[in-house]
Structures are given as structure tokens and as C-alpha cells.
């Protein structure tokens, strides 16, 4: 038996004993709906991305042309400080969405499920802005 044949046997075994779960494919198919159109992207500033002590909060900084966002994530609490935006902040995960008012530049959302999170904002001139996804 050649190595290629043996690998084909292994591939068949993987398909039998460790197949891609149907739910994983379903979630992947649904992910296109998370596409954002016409929103300015606030990019994660890599140098500030992974500032986390052993048990300290995760600190993330995002920046777009119009807006800056600093997130402080402790467990299921996301606290944000924004400049260049006003009104409401919408904290999104792949499965949830919460709107909270921005007060003096700050907003706080609780009960945010762990995983990916991003924030939608409205810049002072009305331009919609969305941060990149970051892992909480």
C-alpha cells in the first residue's frame, strides 16, 4: 500500500470518527450575514492588542479615520472609551447585539458571551463605524 493509499484510508477514518459537525457548517454558512457594508473600519492596533496581566482585563485599542475606541474586557463586561463618536455603541458578538448609550465618551455592557466581539459606532459626522472583531 502506498503512502497516498494509506492516507486515503486515514481520511475515510477521519470522516467516520471525527467529521465536521453539521452545526459548524451551518454557523459558517450564516457568517456571511455578519458582513458590514458602508461602515468605516476601525482597525485593531496590534501593539496594544494583547495587554493582559495574568488576571487583568484585556485592553484593546482600535482606530479609524474618524474614531478611536479603547476596550477593556473583564470576563463578560466590556467597557469602552470612544472619541469621535456619539449616541449609542452597539456591542456585537456573532450571536448577540446590545445597544448602550455613550456617556461622556464611556459605555459599559455586561453579560457579553466570550468569543469574538466588535463595536459599532456612529461618528460625529454620521458615518457608521465598526471595529474589527477581537477575541474577548
Amino acid at each position: 500500500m502506498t503512502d497516498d493509499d494509506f492516507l486515503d484510508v486515514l481520511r475515510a477514518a477521519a470522516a467516520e470518527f471525527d467529521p465536521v459537525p453539521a452545526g459548524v457548517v451551518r454557523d459558517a454558512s450564516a457568517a456571511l450575514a455578519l458582513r458590514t457594508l458602508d461602515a468605516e473600519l476601525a482597525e485593531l492596533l496590534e501593539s496594544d492588542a494583547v495587554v493582559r496581566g495574568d488576571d487583568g482585563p484585556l485592553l484593546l485599542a482600535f482606530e479609524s479615520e474618524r474614531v478611536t475606541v479603547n476596550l477593556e474586557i473583564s470576563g463578560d463586561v466590556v467597557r469602552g472609551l470612544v472619541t469621535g463618536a456619539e449616541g449609542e455603541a452597539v456591542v456585537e458578538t456573532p450571536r448577540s447585539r446590545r445597544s448602550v448609550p455613550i456617556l461622556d465618551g464611556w459605555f459599559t455592557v455586561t453579560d457579553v458571551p466570550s468569543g469574538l466581539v466588535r463595536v459599532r459606532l456612529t461618528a460625529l459626522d454620521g458615518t457608521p463605524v465598526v471595529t474589527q472583531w477581537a477575541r474577548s
Partner: protein
Amino acid sequence: MDIPAAVAAAARGDQSAWHALVRQFSGLLWSIARAYRLSDADAADAVQCTWIKLVEHLDRIAEPERLAGWLATTARHECLQLIRRSGRLPEPTEIVDDSPDPAPALDHDLLVGERNAALWRVFEGLPDRCRRLLRVLMASPPPAYAEVAEALDMPVGSVGPIRQRCLNQLKKLVRGDELLEERS
């Protein structure tokens, strides 16, 4: 499948093009997550995050013809992030210190039917470095070596030689497995 065309269509919101990409690469992404020994929940999380990152980057993929490599790299980052968060350290993918024996003949009867279960059990017991490489190579449809290299952050030139050594090691273990011997 015309990957660049599917990427362009998906970027315009074409759900069927997106489905085609999901069908094409879900096997690769799942295999990568399993190669890093992620649990069901973490593997699902890593794969979903990889797809969401692709959605975010759909109109900014520099080389859409190399999408599989981009996905493999992104999946590796997602897996390593989850592993770091759980405090578990992955073992590096290394050259197997194993004399390159000629491949022993493997009884074909050994590999049919319920014997796949025994083969799978032996495979799961392989040293991490071999198990990891072979698990990615088992993806369906079969990935190119370049994608495997991206998934495991190893030189593309070493995929073939390590693959050979790891398959030889597995063949030896399969032959040495009493359960399999009885049936062969």
C-alpha cells in the same frame, strides 16, 4: 472551483458562492482545529472565528487564489489563541527522530470495515507531532502541502519527509496492535 471568483461573489453578498467556499474549506479548518487537539466546543469556536475573519476581509484578500493558505494561517492563529487562553502549550512540530525504515506491507484486509475504528484509536495515540501533521493531511478534500505548512507553521519542504516518517510510524503501530493482528 474558481476560488477568486467565489471570493469576489461572496464579497458582493452572494450566499451561494459563500456556501461553496464553506463546503470547500470546512474540512480543512476542522482538521486544523483537531490537529491542535481542541475540544468540540473550542474547535467549533476556532473554525467559526476563522470564517468570521474571512467575512471581515472578503474585499481585502490580497491573493484570493491563495485563500486556502490564508484560511489555514488564520485558523492556526485562532487555535493558538484558544490554547494560550486555556494555559495549554502546544508541542512544536518537529522532525521525527525515527530511522526511515522501508514501509512494511500493510494487509489490505486490516483496513476495511470496523477495523477503521481500531486504526483511528492507534492514530489518536501517535506522538503529538505526527498526529498533528497527519490530522491536517486527512482533511477532505486533501489540502496542498503549502496549506499544511501554513496550518502548522512549518517549512513546506519538510511536509513530505515528515509525512513519510509519520505514516511509517503509524504502520508499525498498526501492525503491532494485537487487536488488529488477530483480525488480519
